[in-house]
């Protein structure tokens, strides 16, 4: 298994706060990897570092063998490394269908190419994917009129529309009705198995991440605390301590 995403000794601090200290993780092609840790342990900062949202203090990031440390956000997204947001972000004044249509891959699309109407395939694919996440009947509603959980699902469908090679999901099940969570886990697994999309998932819900991930990294206080299979992580005393606050 070759590493699709290779994060080497990444450090990032904001003022006096060291959000990430010397963190190295790797994710193989086709894997589902979890990223856990208490609040403020630096998970989202690591995501932001990977997708080029802010410059790194130290370290390097390679995606598919290519150095992406200094690339800017849209460029990295065009390479097929896509993230979703913890505070769900969709285009609130556009309908669900428009949200989907604008999420097609933008790699190598010229300005002139954008001055055309969307193709029928895009419309059809949007409908298929909205159906996949269970939003087909709501497709003509504006994004902002959907419930929080529905927006989360829409954001997931938009990410799939973008045909990424790898998805960084920031708490995909937060705010989603517990009865729908199982369906979502199932969909994430299908996306991974059927479409071959590699997943790196931040998740607070232990049941979800233990079900989903093949391998888990645990962060605490900006440092990498432990790495291993879900069972190993679950019984690791350092992880238990970090979560329960005993040290």
């Amino acid at each position: 298994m070759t590493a699709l995403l290779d994060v080497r000794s990444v450090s990032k601090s904001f003022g006096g706060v060291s959000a990430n200290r010397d963190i190295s993780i790797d994710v193989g092609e086709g894997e589902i990897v979890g990223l856990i840790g208490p609040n403020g342990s630096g998970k989202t900062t690591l995501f932001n570092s990977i997708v080029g949202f802010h410059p790194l203090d130290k370290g390097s990031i390679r995606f598919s063998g290519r150095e992406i440390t200094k690339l800017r956000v849209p460029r990295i997204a065009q390479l097929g490394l896509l993230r979703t947001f913890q505070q769900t972000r969709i285009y609130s004044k556009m309908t669900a269908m428009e949200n989907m249509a604008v999420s097609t891959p933008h790699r190598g699309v010229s300005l002139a190419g954008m001055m055309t109407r969307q193709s029928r395939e895009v419309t059809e694919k949007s409908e298929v994917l909205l159906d996949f996440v269970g939003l087909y009947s709501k497709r003509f509603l504006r994004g902002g009129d959907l419930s929080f959980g529905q927006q989360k699902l829409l954001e997931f469908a938009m990410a799939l529309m973008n045909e990424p090679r790898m998805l960084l999901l920031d708490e995909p099940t937060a705010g989603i009705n517990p009865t729908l969570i199982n369906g979502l886990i199932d969909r994430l697994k299908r996306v991974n198995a059927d479409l071959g999309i590699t997943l790196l998932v931040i998740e607070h819900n232990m049941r979800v991440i233990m079900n989903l991930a093949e391998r888990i990294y645990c962060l605490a206080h900006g440092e990498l605390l432990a790495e291993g299979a879900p069972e190993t992580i679950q019984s690791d005393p350092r992880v238990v301590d970090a979560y329960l606050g005993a040290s």
Partner: protein
Amino acid sequence: MTLPTSSSGNPANRRFVLLCLAIGVLSIAAPFAFPAIVKQLSIFWVMVIVAYTWDTMGGQLGYNSFGNIVFFGAGLYMSAIVQIAPFTNMRAYTAAGEQGEALALSMGQYLGGLAPGLVAAALTGFVLAVVFGFIILSLRGHYFAIGTLALGIFLAQIFANWEFVGAGSGITMPEFPGQGRASDQNKSILFYFLCFGLASATIVALRWLYSTRFGLAINAIRDDEDKAEAMGITTTRYKVVAWSVSGFFLGVCGALYGNIVRFVDPEETAFDGPGLGVWMVLMAVLGGKGSLWGPLIGAVLFHLTKELLWTYLLGFQNIVLGILVVVIVVFFPEGIMGWVRSRWPHMFGESVDLSRQAEASK
């Protein structure tokens, strides 16, 4: 804006075509039906153009610009130079100021200057927007708005001190050839149709642009620019293109306006930030930002109100206009079209499709 997601919109399409035809016929008949107010009607189309081009930025892209007046003013001055400089000594002509005679030209010279003047004005607006765009479109939200405000003041000052174009004492546009009322009427009609033509071209061009994937992309930037970037949209070039389209039409619009009013003052005609620069925002907001008909509705209501106020309440017009602004912002924060859309969303195709409910909820 709505996507053409279904082909079942035929009755709606027919209604749309009929509406456009009706507006077209009325617009063509108007200057002949109301010969006394042709100039006001021309200025109405100027209002429509500035409202639509402002909406491209403020409504569709979500960048509230107070600097669009810059392209209007720069286009106006560029056209003045192209229309005057080839036929007389520009410096001596402008030095004479308002007291001097307006430049008298033959019809051939007049039109021969006007046509390239309009083209030069369009290019000026376009190029300025590209240059300013790369400089200040990296600012977001309020910072962008303040940046554009500064642009307007900056350019007004430059032109108010540039002797070649008359500096603070302004410039008089060439006289329309011929004498008497017939000639005046001909000029009014000519500029009415130029303004109407430009307004139509602007609306058609923008409608087309909004119907493309480019339109979707700028809407996405409006709704969440960080998200758009995270999805791979290189936002800067979209923003610059949107502004340069605005600048292109505004440049021509300024040139037409200058010829209509004849005497150009740098701060009160060309770079009238507190007047036209604010009105363009008002009209778009009143009609409904980011909607296809909003700027037109806003321009009709605003121009009508303004003309009536100037006629019947002179002296109080700014007070009444101010009250109007407050009423709009308080009661119709989304504008008229925005209010209609939130009240009758199904008219805009926003409805839950239950035809496949059973499958969707499995």
